């Protein structure tokens, strides 16, 4: 069940945009072979893909690496950098519920995936209504506003 209201076209464009390098969300990939490597995530879609379950880090299923973002930092980044206070609040609720990261990340990933799907749908609907403007112009306009 959706917990987020449908974004406007302008909001959807902001949500789907790539932020500048200096605004990227810091993340870490942990690997027993390589130690910890920094990552800088610049889109919400990249963050969603980066968040991978760690439940299967077990001897039978030796996952090579763990992908980590600070959940509280993620919520703050979504609010302040991406500019989506509603999603930021939803993520913040998960981030501060006292559970471990590995338990939270399923919910973090689910909420982000929902927001991405909503935004993509808004973009598709916009393209259907205004076929002449189906290119990236709205996104450019929103991203620079």
């Amino acid at each position, binding site marked *: 069940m959706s917990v987020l209201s449908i974004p406007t076209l302008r909001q959807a464009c902001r949500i789907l945009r790539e932020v500048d390098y200096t605004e990227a969300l810091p993340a870490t990939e942990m690997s027993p072979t390589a130690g910890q490597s*920094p990552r800088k995530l610049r889109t919400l879609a990249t963050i969603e893909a980066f968040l991978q379950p760690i439940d299967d880090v077990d001897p039978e299923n030796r996952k090579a690496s763990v992908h980590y973002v600070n959940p509280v930092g993620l919520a703050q980044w979504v609010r302040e950098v991406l500019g989506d206070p509603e999603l930021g609040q939803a993520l913040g609720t998960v981030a501060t519920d006292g559970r471990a990261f*590995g338990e939270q990340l399923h919910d973090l990933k689910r909420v982000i995936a929902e927001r991405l799907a909503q935004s993509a749908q808004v973009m598709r609907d916009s393209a259907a209504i205004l076929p002449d403007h189906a290119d990236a112009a709205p996104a450019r306009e929103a991203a620079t506003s």
Partner: protein
Amino acid sequence: MGNGYAGKILKLDLTNLTAEVIQTSKYESWVGGHGMGSALFWDLCEDKTVKGTDPKNVVTIMSSPLSGTVAPSVSGRTEVQGIGLQGFPIPWYTRSNFGGRFSAMLKYAGWDGIAVVGKAPRPVWVNVVNSKVTFEEAKDLWGLDTWETQEEIWASVTKGRQDGAWGELTAGRDGGRSTQRPAVLTIGPNAERFAPLASLIHDAGNGAGQGGFGGVFASKNLKAVSVLGTGGVEIADPQAMMEARLWAQQYAYAGHADNPNTYVGMQGMSAPPGNAIRMYSDGVKSRPQACVGCLRSCRGRTHNGSGNESSCIDFHWFTPQDKQAHGGFITANTAAATDLLQRYGMNASTFMAITLWFQDLIAMGVLGAGKEIDTKLPIGQFGNVEFAAALLKSIAENTDIGADLAKGLPQAATKWGRYEKDTNSGILPIQEWGYAHHYDARTETEWGLASILGERDINGHDFDFPLYWTPTLNAMQGKTPDVSAEELAKIFKKKLAPFHDEMMIDYSDEGIYSEGVVKATAWLLYYGRFWKNSVLYCDWAWADFVNPYGPNYEGMTPEGEPKFLNAVTGGDMSFEDGMELGRKIWNMDRAIWILQGRHRDQEVFTGYTYDVPSNGGQTSFELPYTLPVYEDGKWEYKSVAGRTLDRKKFEGVKTMFYEFEGWDPKTGWPTRECLQKLGLSEVADELEKAGKLGVA
């Protein structure tokens, strides 16, 4: 009965293209591997201040008495040492190590090691078939990659017989018969062009990556060494060996395959086999692949042949970029890039640092066509094998930015005016001596301290798996570790011979500047120098501190290491004896670095170690970082993320370490008293002659 030794060391005089025999007995007190190799280097390299490319440099390639036996996770390793090319700003005397079957084949051919001296007048490869040694023309091999080279040599030595078919090695069956291919150690195409990055490669994916020994081989006009043997390894007590092997099996997955443990954490000896730690793309099937005699079998052979025998960092230099470009999934690009790297014979660890740094430089708009660092490399393909291929080719052929990178990563960064800036911010992940950042001096301080006091990243996961990975994985999953911090401290106290001090694993803000971290560092260095680098126990399985199959989660260390060694040699070396010998080897290496110009003032990390905490997101190497700490009178697991090293306190730790070793704290140079106690009077004489003996 034998004692595990073949009895002979092969000295290859490349200048005169002659082979000589050195009796192993002269060096048996060093046991094998690095200790024996360093002792040989000390005797054979008259001027230890020469460059790695100087013909006077000596490279030793060593086995151990356990090589080629059934002792687990030890008998397939080979140790290499000499003056390297990778260290920055000074290319130190250094070491590297690789798995596979080379050391076993060396023993079967009747040799305990190889010492390479001089420089061949023309490109050659060396063909060792049992006791017969010939120098073969390598002009036609010089430009071939590592796989092509091995295929050519296999065909030449086996005279084209089919794999697995019997072949006579010399005239008549008394000369030896074998179904095996020779074990070949080779360099990539024209490796002199990318010397500091050049590895030694054996079979598909075994590499001595660190140190630039591929470049040293190239400087000696040596393309490859091929070894084929038909003998065996005679050991002192076969029954003790079999009993020890069966005992060890109870600590390994192999002894519990029908009912494996459910332990959450990173495992060494007890881990399940195969699959190269899951760095293949979905759908790739693989079977476990082991080095000779190994119970751990950490590598894989794949159904499509891609990524065969590679492991660890071989893949990881490209997996993050692959995943980032492909929606978080590992694709076939990773294995393809890995195979390319192995074929060129380049150091994967350095390439991990290059790609991490590049991802920032690209995003910052610094690297690209027409940018500050101008390149025609296909930046848009970053994460695809097309980029990997273009990058590796540019380095191998000295074109585009590859011409600078081929001289070494820190050298290229210096030329581009970014070394200082980017190691201060941390986006260029080099913490010491020009080597790629691995584990972090700010958190696992003993790892960093051991590396900066030595000459390279120590790559010793002894503490790292049970003390960092296991509690961190549990914390991230909201689980309680099977072994509490208090129980862990007891296990380590019991096993950390000869110090037996539980405070060695205190990672609190006070603990990392205490006597505990000094002892922990010394333990890692002595254990590494002897049990791992000399006896050649594999880092991926040993030391075995915590083992879910062991009684009360206790692993085989320190009982296991001497158990196998003594079964082979017939000696009665204790674990503590080995640690003392490790200390001796460590001090000999230290003396070589002192002769090369080492001083305590140089033993300083790059800027981000002291100035950038992890939570700024610029380096992010230590998020999260759960370790055992002793605070308020009790042990607990706690995240120490966000920490920096305090310069003044760290200098204090260095002073404590120098004093602990009996070195001069002003210079970091060993004193005569210290060296004499270790039986290294000749080394003290040499330092004194150079005016570099420490003052007591």
